[in-house]
């Protein structure tokens, strides 16, 4: 890299006359909200390649600073300093460098990593992937700003998660309960209704009578999907319980790197300062990882598995780990990432590394979807590791955990019976085994299947669980204590094997 700067042509240009005064905190969200732009702009653009731009002759520019680029036509773009060496700065341009002419391009360095205004002003707003409102309203204002990169939470200050977030989706609430402060992803494959499910959860989720809100960060959504999400969540946004950030498929790829971080920065303030329980939905993280790979390739970094950068795990962790609760502070941040597994491959780096970080997973199954069941969740491969902390007596109900354990055990048995029935025919099964087939049908019809706008109460869900369980005779319900079994339930002892 040429470190010799030509000081004559690279002196910072003073653009006092044609630059609007430096933005005050809170104006013009998306044009680097919360940034005081200096009057000085540099003109020494040395090279442009893919998303990268090298500026020479800079002084005092720090790593990871936020950057504003003014093209020769006056168009504004933004970027991040990826590396600094002596008087050279390598800038990652969010919108890409297409159309930029080194001769007329001027670059301003903000002096600090990207910060955004935070606070209650975000509630009810609909924005693009960088936080610029697209709802026709004014820019989002805030009394303070926070760095979007976030800071690691001191592990000794974390409060272990407890108390549920109820989604109104029976199969999730009953069998893979969300816990406040948890990170629990939805693993899906292209073509399944994961976006619909995420949107339904965003529209319905609640934390009992406690103040609650949702930050929905969409990444790589088509315009049709974006319109669907906006339409479906309009109601909740209108009552100020939802913030929508959508990075559309045709928006700059690198903007996707920002979207989840902006969402989490907004959420942290709402949770730990304003005492709300915040659910952050990140859809789709596979697109995010692809954007990361694109930058990594442009920076000529040494690739690891499937050409994803070696730091993919740490990068994802830096996002997912921003969930949690903190001792002595109100509120909580719960993270629900949605990701599609390319080719349905759970060992693909994105789901694999996500699984290593998150506390369980909710897996959608194409087979269940093909049977016309919504949401097509496969309860047997889904797991909420923290469910014990968030469900049970005093949190959901004393019956909840035994019922969930019984349903999962019986469903596993039903699966085996179903395989056997496919082999030898249902008629050759024992009476008990045929009972399991009926159980499986009831499980999907009564409990899992629900309308996309149907918000089921916990009582309704648990009642359905019990009704499904009681399609089996008493002898098969070994995980339920006697007090939970209704009097009229057949004992099942009279069954004889064929």
């Amino acid at each position, binding site marked *: 890299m040429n470190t010799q700067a030509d000081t004559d042509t690279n002196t910072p240009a003073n653009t006092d006359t044609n630059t609007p005064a430096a933005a005050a905190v809170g104006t013009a969200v998306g044009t680097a909200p919360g940034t005081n732009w200096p009057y000085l702009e540099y003109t020494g653009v040395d090279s442009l390649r893919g998303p990268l731009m090298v500026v020479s002759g800079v002084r005092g520019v720090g790593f990871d600073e936020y950057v504003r680029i003014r093209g020769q036509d006056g168009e504004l773009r933004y970027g991040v300093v990826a590396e600094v*060496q002596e008087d050279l700065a390598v800038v990652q341009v969010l919108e890409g460098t297409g159309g930029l002419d080194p001769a007329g391009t001027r670059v301003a360095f903000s002096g600090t990593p990207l910060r955004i205004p935070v606070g209650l002003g975000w509630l009810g707003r609909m924005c693009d992937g960088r936080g610029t409102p697209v709802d026709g309203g004014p820019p989002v204002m805030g009394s303070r700003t926070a760095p979007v990169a976030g*800071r690691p*939470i001191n*592990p000794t200050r974390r*409060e272990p998660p407890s108390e549920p977030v109820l989604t109104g989706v029976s199969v999730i609430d009953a069998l893979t309960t969300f816990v406040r402060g948890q990170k629990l992803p939805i693993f899906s494959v292209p073509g399944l209704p994961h976006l619909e499910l995420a949107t339904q959860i965003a529209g319905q989720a609640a934390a009992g009578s406690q103040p609650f809100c949702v930050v929905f960060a969409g990444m790589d959504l088509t315009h049709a999907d974006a319109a669907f999400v906006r339409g479906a969540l309009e109601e909740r946004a209108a009552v100020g319980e939802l913030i929508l950030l959508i990075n559309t498929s045709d928006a700059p790829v690198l903007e996707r790197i920002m979207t989840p971080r902006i969402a989490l920065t907004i959420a942290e303030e709402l949770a730990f300062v304003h005492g709300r329980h915040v659910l952050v939905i990140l859809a789709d993280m596979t697109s995010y990882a692809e954007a990361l790979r694109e930058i990594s390739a442009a920076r000529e970094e*040494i690739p690891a598995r499937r050409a994803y950068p070696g730091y993919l795990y740490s990068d994802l962790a830096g996002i997912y780990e921003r969930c949690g609760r903190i001792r002595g502070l109100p509120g909580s941040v719960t993270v629900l990432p949605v990701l599609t597994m390319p080719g349905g491959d759970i060992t693909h780096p994105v789901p694999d590394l996500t699984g290593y970080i998150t*506390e369980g997973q909710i897996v959608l199954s194409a087979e269940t979807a093909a049977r016309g069941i919504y949401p097509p969740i496969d309860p047997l491969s889904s797991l909420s590791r923290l469910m014990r902390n968030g469900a049970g007596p005093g949190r959901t109900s004393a019956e909840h955990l035994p019922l969930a354990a019984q349903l999962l055990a019986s469903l596993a048995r039903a699966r085996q019976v179903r395989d056997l029935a496919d082999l030898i025919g249902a008629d050759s099964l024992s009476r008990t085994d045929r009972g399991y087939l009926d159980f499986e049908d009831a499980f999907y019809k009564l409990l899992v299947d629900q309308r996309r706008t149907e918000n089921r109460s916990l009582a309704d869900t648990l009642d359905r669980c019990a009704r499904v369980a009681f399609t089996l005779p008493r002898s098969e319900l070994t995980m339920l204590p006697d007090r939970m079994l209704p009097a009229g339930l057949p004992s099942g002892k009279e069954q004889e094997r064929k």
Partner: protein
Amino acid sequence: MDAVTGAVRRVAGPLVEIELDGGHTAAMSEQVLLGAARVPGEVVAIRGGVLTVQAYEYTGGLAPGDPVIPQHRPLSALLGAALLGGVFDGLLRPLAGAGDWLGGSGGAPDATPDERTWQFTPEADPGDPAPAGTRLGTLAVCTAVEHRVLVPPGLHENRPDPDGYGAPAQPRLDWIAPPGQYGQHAVVARVGGEPVALSERWPIRRPRPFRRRLDSVTPLHTGQRALDLLFPIAKGGSAAVPGGFGTGKTVLLQQIAKWCDADVIIYLGCGERGNEMAQVVDEISRLRDPRGGGRLAERTVVVANTSDMPMMARESSIYVGACVAEYYRDMGYDAVVIADSTSRWAEALREFASRSGALPAEEGFPADLASALAAFYERAGTVQTLGSGRGSVTVLGAVSPPGGDMAEPVTVHTERFVRARWTLDRDLAYARHYPAVSWAASFSRDAAALAHAAGFGPLRERLVLILARADRLADLVDLVGISALPAEERMAVLAGRLVREGVLQQSALSETDGYSPDRKTAALAEAVLAVIDRCFAVARAAGPVPVESVDFGPLLRAREQAGPQDVAVVEQCRDTVLAALDALAGGEAPR
């Protein structure tokens, strides 16, 4: 020590290049502080006048020209009385005094000084010879482990040798402090003219010296039957625990941390989940110590470097853990380092190698991955300490193979350096068989000697044979069905099931069975073997009888019903099943 004698030249993530002012130098592995925020870093390469530094915190905002303060000492950890019961970051800085969020202004973990004091009892007299390792006294730190104050190694290392003969006279104790309360930095003795404080700095990458290595055939009792019976490990040994996500690695390691019979536990959360770390700390601080009346936390040191904390501190945390373990080893204790997970540490190595432009080897990992792993696992061992006592460091490392691929570099290289591998199997975990230790894919190089030492020798041999035979038959059963097999083979399949469900399974959540001492382990194994023998005998003698229809429930529930010491309950369960088998055979016990 705090003079600015250099400037930042280049910043790319955790890789920082610096230049020192004329006349100033720094050595490899020395610590430097970068910029106004004083981000700690370590010199990892020197080329001409340019020094490459690995930064241990976020470098956002760091700019060329920012000041650099060389510390003129290698990256080292502060070892002392404040360790036990504490939670530290990857550079062994206490986290208790830090804020809710780390990094940035005011969040430096060592911002608040530790003001605690401990009762010191001197045990040596002035004039006594006091070479490194000599016991000077004790500190009252906790009830379960006596903190021994020793003459630290390297005390006279940097002193010029006046005669030039290389063999200085034996240093003697000049002065020792009277009994009393002292803080961690207090000087309590003077040896050969050098002050000895209650805490010392030790370079984390340098193994602490000892007299010699000893052979050890003392088993480390983990309280986990699958490990103690089938794949035991010695005190001073090392083991790797590879397993994909959801196979129960962390739960297994936490169980070992809670129940193993080592004196001091160092739990190293390296790039793992924050909530999980919070839960571990919470549980350890509530758990009553199985030995002595205190809390388990009192003899545990937690190093927490969660996945959102700076990546490069993962790299150092592994060595910090080993360093702390060696500190207690030198006091004559058995220490265990539990590292979860070494794969995240290897990723930090890869990240930095990539930034510094090193040539990549397999999957982008640096070519020296194997030697870095060796440097960690080889710090395990039983030794004769400088003070002529006996101490050990046992190293247990989790490995998180991407995609469950057991042929990936970290898993493959780790296997070469460990004495035991406890492979966790996804199929077992999905079948809710916990701990999901695969008997087919695990090994223990010292199994025979250790099983003998624990009195499990013959038991282990039989169990291994039974499991292997049942596994061989499993494929056949899938093909032709169990009923098509002859009685002998059917019994072999049944035997495999009884061993798996009656002995190997162990619930970490269970009040009675979370921990299984040797007596209970042996009783359960013997009970199951007795029943298996009777099954074969009945099947052979009584012809075609449905042995499988006997209710084996009491035997399988014995592990849950019997508390850790209730051998009689196990025997009772065994006798119930034996009686049922005898009844099946026609009331007469076939022998």
